[in-house]
């Protein structure tokens, strides 16, 4: 439909409401000139240079090998983890916490945000508490949540849900409140019932900001799961990091961190892909 294909689209900064922890990969790159083949080689080159520096530092003998393990040792550790199936097992645990937490947090935030956007009463009654909730440092209450909900998945899901809740809520409120009153008049003049108004107007109108919130939530939720696993857990990538730290297995720590990063980026990429397929119409506006 739209012939001008954009790279994975971030939306314009003024349109995204909570860009703080989203990955502004394309925002940083001016989009006016097309990427040439040489430009595409730049990032991998930087990566290789960084790896070489790391290898150089590791081999220099300045630091003990358990403080700065070489990239090769990290890679070997990663392979060993992958080969005996434990990497997959731990990743699956974290992924389940992250996704369940996101689902709970995003859904709760959407409906609450919807209520706040539509009802003044709800807005006045709830806003102070929601802001206070946002101000609570998650890391500080994580131990409490573990005491209350146990060391299993439930406590991590709650932490993930709490961490994605606020940005999602803010985005939903902005999305629903931003619907032009004339479009509401249109729906009213066509005698749309409340469900039809939601389905044909409010949901699609709020979708760009909601998906923006989803992208932010994807990376935040991974942080939430790691926080929970740090406090108390028997499996998960965050648990691996913690375990490796305790046994001075730095290659394990680094291998787990890389896996976590890859996980967060994949989830973000999925959200961006969702945006790409669901919001065809929106890209046309932004161009």
């Amino acid at each position, binding site marked *: 439909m739209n012939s001008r294909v954009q790279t994975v689209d971030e939306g314009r900064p003024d349109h995204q409401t909570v860009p703080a922890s989203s990955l502004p990969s394309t925002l940083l790159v001016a989009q006016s000139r097309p990427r040439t083949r040489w430009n595409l080689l730049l990032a991998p080159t930087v990566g290789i240079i960084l790896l070489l520096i790391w290898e150089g530092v590791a081999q220099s003998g300045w630091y003990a090998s358990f403080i700065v393990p070489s990239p090769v040792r990290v890679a070997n550790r990663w392979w060993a983890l992958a080969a005996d199936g434990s990497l997959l097992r731990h990743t699956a645990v974290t992924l389940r916490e992250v996704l369940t937490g996101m689902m709970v947090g995003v859904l709760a935030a959407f409906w609450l945000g919807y209520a706040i956007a539509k009802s003044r009463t709800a807005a006045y009654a709830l806003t102070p508490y929601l802001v206070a909730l946002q101000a609570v440092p998650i890391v500080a209450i994580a131990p409490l949540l573990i005491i209350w909900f146990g060391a299993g998945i439930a406590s991590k899901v709650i932490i993930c849900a709490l961490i994605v809740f606020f940005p999602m809520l803010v985005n939903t409120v902005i999305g629903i409140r931003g619907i032009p009153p004339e479009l509401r008049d249109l729906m009213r003049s066509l*005698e*749309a019932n409340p469900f039809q108004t939601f389905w044909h107007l409010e949901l699609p109108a709020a979708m760009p900001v909601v998906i923006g919130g989803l992208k932010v939530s994807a990376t935040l939720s991974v942080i939430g799961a790691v926080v929970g696993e740090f406090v108390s857990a028997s499996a998960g990538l965050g648990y691996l990091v913690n375990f490796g730290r305790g046994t001075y297995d730095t290659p394990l720590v680094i291998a787990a961190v890389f896996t976590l990063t890859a996980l967060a980026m994949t989830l973000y990429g999925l959200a961006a892909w969702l945006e790409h397929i669901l919001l065809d119409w929106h890209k*046309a506006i932004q161009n």
Partner: protein
Amino acid sequence: MSDQTILAAEQISHLYPDGIHALDNVTLRLACESFVCLVGPSGCGKSTLLRILAGLLPPGAGHVLLDEQPITQPQRRIGIVFQKANLLPWRTVYGNLSLPLELAGMPVAERDERTLAMLNLINLEEFADTYPASLSGGMAQRIAIGRALIHDPQVLLLDEPFGALDALTREQMSEELLRIWARHRKTVLMVTHSIPEAVLLADRVLVMSPRPGRIVADVEIPLSRPRSLDLLHRPDFVALTERLRHSIRTAH
């Protein structure tokens, strides 16, 4: 044209909450299948009146009668086109046109048939799958008019539908509206700022005073139909525009 009244406003006054007195005792009757234009200075309450007639805004005083029944909320039987095209940006041209039918729960086959017929009527078949963001203003307004007509309302209210268009497109759109109206004979009330446009389109032109808006003149346009843009240069047309201009100038 029958003389039977379909939509009537009885002694409508409206005061906005911030104290702005928008309408003062407005009474009007729209005869079945007539084309009536409403002109008046900016800010005199034309849009307010239209929103009240559409049931979108409850009047401070007075009432609106559709087929002699008072209305208190929006009705499908009254279609409205706003100054902005107000298309849903996530729906294609086709999707925007079929929206009223979908909301009314019409079966898909019938919906398709009607939407295609409307696309044909407004000459936008090749744009069926285009999103509104890549349409011109005139195209968007044509879709807005098509959307207001597609579920076959009895009354069509148009609030400066061509206000945002350039003069040339505007003339073409008036002619197109005449053509569409000839096919879908409806009762139309259209707000416009253009005197020639009002004379070209209307059977009757109502003139409103500055705020608080009242109807201060009611001018018959006795030109025969079908009409076209060629009229614009005929002496009787020019004389009518002059007469209308005069009654607007002396309207207080």
